[in-house]
């Protein structure tokens, strides 16, 4: 009998700590953290990365990704990232923010950071709710969606419409890359990874601001099983938040 040759094809990214996360079962943060970590490894950025943590479920990012990290006040990560990048332009600088953080309380900071074309990369996790605080209505909550602060469903007449950040930021001259991706299936995970790489590369090549919005499931606050939540991402979210690349100066450069 011939010996079976084993080849390892999957492992923990080098810059990811081998610890259990605090995320709920079925939450997509873990997958997104992993993709970010893989991209850091692929581009060999662990030694030079400075991460900006934000407020929300992702606040413990420094417990999982092994890079230098500074914690920003709620919504201010793009301003902190600006300060870090201006102070240390030789470093790779990225921030990881949720939807309440980025699209509500930090809307001004993200828009101006993108518009200045800061050489930073922002990963934006959109799960249509405030997760950490218990599932309140977010600026990305879909019309009709019930949350703890929109108990009758979000009404366009009173609460307006969910913000489409990937499209909004793509419109700004300073933005070099903007995309919306999802991690609900293998195909989308592969696309998400490619988009992350480009959002990293536009910074490394000095082209401008890099942005990736990731549609994400929050089974706990959606009151769904992990599988139902994963299906909702495709069934309800993608209809209003279409996946795609909205700006790509890397491609334009070629």
């Amino acid at each position, binding site marked *: 009998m011939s010996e079976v040759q084993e080849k390892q094809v999957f492992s923990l990214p080098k810059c990811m700590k081998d610890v259990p996360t605090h995320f709920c079962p079925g939450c997509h943060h873990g997958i997104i953290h992993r993709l970010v970590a893989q991209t850091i490894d692929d581009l060999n950025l662990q030694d*030079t990365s400075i991460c900006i943590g934000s407020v929300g479920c992702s606040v413990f990012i420094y417990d999982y990704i092994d890079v*230098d990290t*500074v*914690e920003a006040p709620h919504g*201010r990560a793009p*301003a902190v990232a600006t300060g*870090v990048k201006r*102070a240390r332009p030789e470093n790779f600088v990225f921030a990881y923010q949720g939807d309440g953080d980025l699209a509500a309380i930090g809307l001004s900071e993200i828009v*101006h950071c993108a518009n200045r074309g800061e050489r930073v990369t922002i990963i934006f996790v959109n799960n249509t709710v405030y997760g950490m605080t218990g599932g309140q209505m977010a600026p990305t909550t879909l019309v009709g969606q019930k949350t703890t602060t929109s108990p009758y469903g979000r009404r366009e007449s009173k609460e307006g419409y969910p913000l489409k950040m990937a499209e909004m930021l793509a419109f700004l001259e300073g933005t070099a890359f903007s995309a919306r991706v999802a991690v609900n299936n293998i195909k989308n995970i592969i696309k998400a990874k490619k988009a992350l790489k480009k959002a990293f590369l536009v910074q490394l090549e000095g082209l401008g601001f890099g942005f990736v919005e990731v549609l994400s499931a929050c089974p706990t606050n959606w009151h769904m099983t992990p599988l139902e939540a994963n299906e909702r991402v495709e069934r309800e979210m993608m209809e209003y938040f279409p996946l795609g690349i909205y700006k790509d100066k890397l491609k334009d450069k070629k």
Partner: protein
Amino acid sequence: MDKNRERMLVKGNEAIAIGALDAGVECYFAYPITPQSDIPEYLSRELVKLGGEFVQAESELASINMVLGAAACGKRAMTSSSSPGISLKQEGISYMAGSELPAVIVNITRGGPGLGGIQPSQGDYFQATRGGGHGDYRTMVLAPSTCQECYDLTIEAFDLAFKYRNPVLILGDAILGQMKEPITRWKQRTIDPNEANEWKLTGKKGREQRILKSLFLGDGEMEEHNMKLWKKYKSMEQDLKWEEFSVEDAEVVAVAFGSIGRIAKSSARKLREMGYKVGVFRPITLFPFPYEPLRKLAMSGKRFITIENNTGQMVEDVKLALCGVTDTEFFANMPGKVSTPEDFIEPIKKMF
């Protein structure tokens, strides 16, 4: 002419900007507001010439958080504003205190509350000396009274910020920011690339990951952190500063800070010409407050009058200093009013 001893005729605001340059400021982020806009105007020109970073931020919130980011990288970073703008910065100042990040924050105060006006006021004393934002923290507060002191104390503020890993406030006002005086420039710009080696973020190459944060959720962590901060704030007393002017034989001592302290000195001179033995005690560090030096003066039997350009804020610290020995009279000079030495003569005379 030796550049180290260059004499210049400048505004208080410019003296602060020049002090920051000579102290080695590398990153300055700000938002325009009267009466301090000379500072961003000066530094957007001169700091950028020297290779430093200036961003006119979209808001006061953004500017203080840019400072937070640059400070996390161990850079000498500064922002400046005036009262309403400083209120907006309090969130970031609290986070910086919690994360133990050094920076210099300049407040050229104006009248309030609300939009108030652009006239002078010392109405931000409580906000400056009691932390100002949420949480149990303090920032060191330096109160200059001349353009020279604007320059000197800005340089010192950077050193103190790094010594304690804590934000340091310069508390001036519209009089000081807008008046012109000669200053002597005594320091040449130097940048020490190693002063934050123990904690700054550079990327983790060759060492363990560093985390700069103010979130402490673990059992006992926050208690321990607050204890550490409290000890640090107590230790700042080693850098107490104050000025005593003609106090030795004085029967009455006026206690006043900043521009009012300086005006009170003129009043004291005039009163002495009239035969009244008047001195002035001028706190320069407002936090920590020079309680003991003031108490010592009280022990020798002097009487006190506190004069402020507000309705009574520092007077509470003066009362604490004098507690059990004597008390202080208080003269309120309303925010918005530019005082003259004559304004204080009658209230002080009444003490005799």
